[in-house]
């Protein structure tokens, strides 16, 4: 039995064995529990039966007692009548002789249950009947004015002998009833003891099983806890690395800006002071330098902004309907110029960083308008999922070939020459970062030339998002 409690090593096959064993032990415990319950029921049943026996026995004893007292009543009624000839004495006699057969039947009917001997009862019945007949005979003789005969019959002492015999039978019956009762009682007590022992054993084994289950659960619990803690530490380390990386990106882009500004400034100075000494080629070179510097400034600023995502403040409730209306107002120039239409159904109120969520929607809407050769139509919709809101921004634009769909969310990745579609290739990288910041995912469904559908999810409960260290902002 105690072999069950030894711990084995944790290789997978023994793990399976252990779980099988744990199951077997649980099954055994269940069986024992059933057994204990059965024992309890049996003991209850036993008790009830013993009580029934006692009740029957008592009833039977009281009936025997009643029989004797009725016979005595009848006898005194008979004597009274014989002595006084007063017929009022006959009424109780009549009553008793009416009741006695029923009483005898009752005694006999319970004889089996109270273990009285049938022979005794038959003798009691015949003796009682004879006694009654003897008394009835004396009354009949007296009625027919043969009082002397009646007295003589009484004097024969048959009635007394009968009465004594009846008493003896009753005493014998009462004794045997009592003995049977004692016998039953002993058996019941023994059964009770046995059942009690059985129950005690079950309880002990159950306790051992409980201890075993406890030790199994505890070891599982400790292992889970250790794993959880390790995971937590890893996550903290990852977050630390991430924040270091973001900080690096921030500082790098910040410091890159300074020499860039100097280049731009001196190109301006050069333009102002030396332009008349340059030929057209020289001016063109200067333009290239200026353009490159501007472009680099755009990239560096993009990087800076990217590193700043999620640092705009607090999570707030955002009414997306209102947000889209504001964006539409801000983009009205671009929308009117392209004769674009913006459709959106009932949109929810979500929890998120206001600036970032706004940028997310704005970038997607702008892309939908920008990458379009016809009349842009942008549709924004939202489906409620269990833990997330799933938004869709669909357009009728130029679409994206499946090969490129993976790439577009990368930083500085572009599919088109900036002469065709201007931009730094950071818009969708921003979107991805913002969506991830809000515990969601972003993906798209698109075919070249057939429009694009950008899907993204935003977690309903953003309480898991840890607040981000605030960097200085302009």
């Amino acid at each position, binding site marked *: 039995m105690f072999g069950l409690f030894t711990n084995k090593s944790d290789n997978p096959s023994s793990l399976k064995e252990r779980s099988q064993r744990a199951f077997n032990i649980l099954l055994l415990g269940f069986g024992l529990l059933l057994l204990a319950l059965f024992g309890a029921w049996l003991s209850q049943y036993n008790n009830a039966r013993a009580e029934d026996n006692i009740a029957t026995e008592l009833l039977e004893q009281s009936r025997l007692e009643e029989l004797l007292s009725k016979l005595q009543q009848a006898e005194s009624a008979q004597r009274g009548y014989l002595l006084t000839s007063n017929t009022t004495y006959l009424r109780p006699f009549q009553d008793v002789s009416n009741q006695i057969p029923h009483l005898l039947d009752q005694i006999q009917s319970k004889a089996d249950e109270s273990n009285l001997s049938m022979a005794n009862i038959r003798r009691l019945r015949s003796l009682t009947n004879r006694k009654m007949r003897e008394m009835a005979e004396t009354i009949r003789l007296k009625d027919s004015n043969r009082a002397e005969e009646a007295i003589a019959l009484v004097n024969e002492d048959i009635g007394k002998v009968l009465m004594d015999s009846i008493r003896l039978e009753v005493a014998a019956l009462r004794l045997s009833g009592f003995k049977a009762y004692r016998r039953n009682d002993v058996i019941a007590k023994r059964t009770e003891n046995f059942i009690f022992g059985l129950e005690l054993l079950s309880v002990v084994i159950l306790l051992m099983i409980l201890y075993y289950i406890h030790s199994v659960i505890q070891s599982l619990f400790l292992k889970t806890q250790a794993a959880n803690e390790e995971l937590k530490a890893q996550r903290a380390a990852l977050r630390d690395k991430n924040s270091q990386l973001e900080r690096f990106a921030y500082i790098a882009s*910040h410091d890159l*800006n*300074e020499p860039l*500004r*100097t280049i731009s*400034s*001196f190109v301006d*100075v050069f333009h102002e002071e030396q332009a008349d000494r340059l030929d057209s080629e020289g001016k063109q070179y200067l333009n290239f330098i200026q353009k490159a510097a501007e472009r680099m400034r755009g990239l560096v600023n993009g990087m800076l902004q990217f590193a700043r995502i999620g640092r705009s403040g607090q999570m707030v409730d955002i009414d997306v309907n209102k947000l889209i209306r504001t964006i539409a107002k801000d983009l009205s120039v671009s929308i009117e110029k392209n004769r674009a239409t913006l459709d959106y159904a009932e949109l929810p109120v979500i929890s998120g960083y206001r600036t970032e969520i706004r940028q997310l929607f704005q970038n997607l809407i702008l892309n939908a308008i920008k990458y379009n050769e016809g009349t842009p139509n942008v549709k924004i919709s939202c489906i409620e999922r269990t833990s997330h809101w799933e938004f869709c921004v669909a357009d009728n634009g130029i679409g994206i070939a499946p090969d490129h769909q993976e790439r577009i969310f990368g930083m500085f990745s572009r599919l088109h020459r900036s002469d065709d579609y201007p931009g730094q290739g950071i818009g969708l990288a921003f979107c991805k970062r913002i969506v991830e910041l809000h515990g969601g995912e972003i993906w798209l469904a698109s075919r070249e030339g057939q429009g694009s559908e950008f899907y993204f999810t935003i977690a309903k409960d953003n309480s898991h998002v840890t607040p981000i260290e605030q960097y*200085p*902002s*302009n």
Partner: protein
Amino acid sequence: MSPQLNSILLIDDSASDNFLTTRTINKTGLCKNVVSTTGGREALDYLSCAKEGKYPNPELIFLDINMPGMNGWEFLEAYNELPEEMRNSIVVCMLTTNMSESDQRNSTRFNVLDSYTEKPLTEAKFIQLVEHHFQERFNGSPS
């Protein structure tokens, strides 16, 4: 004839930045003399060196914070220690893009700082600064 400041001191380790700032100020014609120094130490020497019994006391000092050696904050500490007669200037802090957290802490520590401006200094920003700090000259003397 617009009113003019007598002198402005620039403290910036970047010679190119000093050049650009001087150029911008000169273009506005609001200052007679712009002096460039490339560090806090050099600036302190300039401020504490009297010419003909008079300390330079420029009306404005443009101070860069991020400098090797003595940085802007250290300069301000030393400047505070100077005798009264040597420091009669309005100090403007020049910021590269933005302030870091420690910069923000320091800026509240030094009440000698009169204002901030972001690099690069443009003509418009300079004129605004002068109008702000030398209001009485613009309003007091009719041009």
